[in-house]
Each structure stands twice: as C-alpha cells, then as structure tokens.
C-alpha cells in the first residue's frame, strides 16, 4: 500500500473527467427529467469539430472553447428539436431516453463517416511531466484536472449566486411553481442542456488529448460517469461530482491492488452494494411526485 498516494492521484485525475460528465448528466436530468445518453457522443462531436479547427491552425485553447461552444449549441438543439416536442409526462420521458440513445448512435456513425475511423492524435497543451506530492503526472493531466475543478467551482458558484442558476434550481424542484413566478421553462432547459453538454465537452477534450480523438472516445468514461451519478444521486449536483471522483479513485485502487482484469466488476459490485444500502445514492433525494 506504499504507493497508495499515486494511485489516488491517478484516480482523482481520471475521476475529474467522470465528474464533469456526471455533472452534465445531472444538470440536464434535473432541468428536463431527461437522461441524455447522447451526452458523450455530443461531446465527442464537439472534440472532432475542434480537431478540424486545430488542423486549420486554431490554438489548443481556442479549440477547447470551440468544442465547448459546439457541444453546448448541439445540446440546445437536441432539447429544442428532439426532446421538447415529446412533451411532459412519464411516457415521453421514456421516449426521450430512447431518442437520446438513438441520437448517440447517429452521432457516432456520423463521426466515422465524416472524420474516418482512425484515431487522431492531439498534441498536449504543455508537453512533459510534473511531480505533484511526489507523484509524476503529465502536464496534460494536471491541466485537465485543474480545469475540471475550476469548471465545477464555476458551476457551484453559478447555481448558488446567479439569478439564472437559482431559477434553474427552482425549476428543478418544482416546474409548475417556477412557471408561476415567471421562469421560462424553455430558457431554463436551454441553459441546462448547453451547460451539461459544454461540461461534457471539456471532459472529452482532455480525454482526447490523453489518448486520441476517436469515435469511441467517451464510451468507457460515460459508463463510469453514470456509475458516479447513481453513486452520488441522480438529483444531486455535488453528489455527481463526488460520485465521479469516487469512481475514478475506486477504479484505480481496484486495478492496482485487486485485479486489472476485473476492475469494472469490482467497481460496480461496490456501487451495487452502496445502492443496496442507500438507493438514492450518497447525496440524492428520494424522487418526489410532481403534481
């Protein structure tokens, strides 16, 4: 166990991507009751658009902004054109779930058709490694984790201190009461989908920098992000962030000390055990019926 610190550090690094994706999933779910299974592919599409921008000469930082903006707008369009027309109600929520799964498959195919199936390498923002608390990490990982944490702090500030953020929390709690005080549900949904998909794009961008841009970029991360969401609670934003980091750390500990082959099995066995004891997750609230 002498190398526990590096393992935890690696877990925090990978967990930051899961946490961002998980936060995006929860923000969208709370505002529109929709589990957006296309969030990973939307983010990947944003990354490929930014890769094209980089190939045209855009600096990496600009490319990151392009990925965030594109994914955000794509999310808004998805909500406006595919999810909102389904209308409210439990039946449409199930249909929305199927629609987002279908959209994800469509995006995945489109990426292959447009950019091909060969992975595209992205040069790191800053090459080389750095020692953090005695742990050697690439600058890319350090920057990715720092940006993820800054993004999460921004989200916390946004929801706590801005009028739109407070309105989004209000709308998540009671759609009808929110309308009664004059909050426009369509605008809130647009903000949520833009923010959720934008956060996912940050995660995807740094995953691509760490590995490569490819159509399967977010599949594994999204799998773990969903685990983080259920671990932290589907309705809780802090829970999603904590859940994402917890999955990252658990994943690395399982891989290092138990079995690399069974890391997924071990991680999900722990999650099942936790959910057995606390079905709403660590920080999630029980589902309230809206009237």
């Amino acid at each position: 166990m002498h190398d526990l610190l590096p393992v935890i550090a690696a877990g925090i690094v990978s967990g930051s991507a899961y946490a961002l994706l998980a936060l995006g999933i929860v923000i969208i779910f709370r505002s529109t009751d929709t589990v957006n299974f296309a969030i990973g592919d939307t983010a990947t599409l944003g990354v490929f658009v930014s890769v094209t921008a980089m190939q045209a000469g855009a600096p990496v930082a600009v490319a990151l902004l392009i990925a965030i903006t594109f994914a955000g707008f794509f999310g808004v369009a998805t909500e406006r054109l595919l999810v909102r027309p389904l209308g409210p109600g439990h039946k449409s929520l199930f249909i929305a779930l199927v629609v987002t799964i279908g959209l994800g498959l469509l995006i995945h195919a489109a990426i292959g058709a447009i950019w091909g199936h060969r992975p595209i390498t992205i040069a790191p923002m800053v090459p080389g490694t750095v020692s953090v608390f005695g742990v050697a990490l690439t600058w890319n990982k350090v920057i990715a984790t720092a940006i993820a944490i800054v993004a999460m702090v921004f989200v916390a500030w946004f929801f706590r201190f801005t009028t739109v953020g407070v309105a989004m929390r209000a709308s998540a709690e009671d759609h009808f009461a929110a309308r009664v005080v004059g909050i426009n549900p369509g605008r809130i949904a647009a903000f949520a989908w833009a923010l959720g998909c934008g956060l996912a794009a940050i995660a995807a961008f740094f995953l691509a920098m760490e590995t490569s841009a490819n159509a399967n970029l977010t599949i594994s991360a999204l799998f773990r992000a969903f685990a983080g969401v259920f671990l932290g609670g589907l309705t809780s934003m802090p829970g999603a962030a904590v859940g994402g980091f917890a999955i990252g750390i658990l994943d690395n500990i399982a891989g290092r000390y138990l079995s690399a082959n069974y890391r997924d099995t071990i991680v999900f066995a722990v999650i099942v055990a936790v959910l057995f004891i606390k079905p709403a997750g660590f920080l999630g609230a029980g589902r309230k019926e809206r009237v």
Partner: protein
Amino acid sequence: MNSAPLISVKGIGHRYDGVLALDGVDLDIPAGGFVAVLGPNGAGKSTLAQIVAGALRPLKGRIELAGADVTSRAGRQGLVDAGVALIPEGRRLFGQLTVDENLMLGAYGKPRAEREARLAGVYELMPEAVRNGKDRAAATLSGGEQQMLAVGRALMAKPRAVVIDEPSLGLAPILIDRVYEVLDGLRRDGVAVVVFEQLATHAMKHADQIVVIDHGRISHRGAVDDEATVEALRMGYLGHG
C-alpha cells in the same frame, strides 16, 4: 372600489382526461376588489384559480386583463409579468431554496437593484421567524410561516392582483387571521385580491363579493350579507336541505 374588471374570464370550460372541471364559467375581478370564490372540494376552484392567474390555458373561453385578450399567453409563465400573481394551493414554495432566494424569485426577471429594494418592504410584512431566517431553507418553516412567505413571494412581483388558492389550508385560525390581515392590507393599497377557499368563515369576513362554485359551474354570486349567498353556500356544501 372601481367596478371596471381588472381580470375577466368568459365562458371558461376545462377538462382533465375527459372529466369536466369547469363549464361555462364567467368571473370578473374588479381592480382593488376582494372576491372570494367558495366551494366544496372538487368544485373546480384550483382549476379556475390557475386560469384566472393565467397559469393554465383553458380549453374553452377567454381571459382578459384590463380589457385585453391574454388567453394565448396563459399556460406558459402565467401573467405574473403583467401584474397577476398566483399563490397556488399548498403554497408551492421552493423548499430546498432559502427564504431569501424564494422571495427574490418572486420578482424574477426584474433588475437586481429593483428586487433588493422590494425585498426590504416585503420583509417588513413577514413574521419574525421569516425575517430572521433569510438563509433558512423554506421547507424548514412552519405552515403559517410558509404561507406568509408564499404571500411575500407574490408581493415581490408588485402585483395588481393576487390570486390565492386555499390560503387557510392546514393553518391554525390565528394564522389564518394573520394571512387575511395581510390580504386586507393589499386591498387597501389598491391590489385586487381573489381567494379560492373551501373554508368559508374567514373569507366571508373579508371579501366584498362572494362567488359560489359547484361542480364546475358558478351557482351564485352576491354580497357577503346577502341571504341568497348563505343559501347558495349551504346548497353548495351540503347539497340540499
């Protein structure tokens, strides 16, 4: 009291999954008036309250605000920006949000300076526990405090009319009196007040017009001290006799 209607709903009909909730309802709310719509459980009061406030678009009929047809605006964000605030049944506060956040949302869309200026005035009307608990989650307040907070949230919109559904629901008589005192104060300030109540006692002490609703239809409208009003209420609540 000005007799020109501020809000007028005409020929309102509404159904839920084929079940009739309202049928041919006409109702005028005078500017600065105090109207109590009374009726038993299931009479259609909450549906009518939401339609009067523009929070629900009726399947039939029209809603007019100061003579203008606003039916097409109903069912989205209500008419709060046009000066009609709704306090729904059960208050529908944002329980996880603080007292301060709930009040500030009452004036959503207004500039922050304007909202903060209104906040000070609204806090003066609030009970001590609300005034001293600005950072408390609204869900932790008592029923009476929550009702006052709901009234305060509506007042943040600086309304011309306040529509309040079942203000006395679940409250002790002394707290109901306090809520009605505040509503009386609003009327004195020229704000039209419309209460939808199952419990007639308090509403009849304060309103200047009583409307009785039963099975989705207006069965009577008249003055509080009108014998026909008492008879209509008796018929509405007890059926016949």
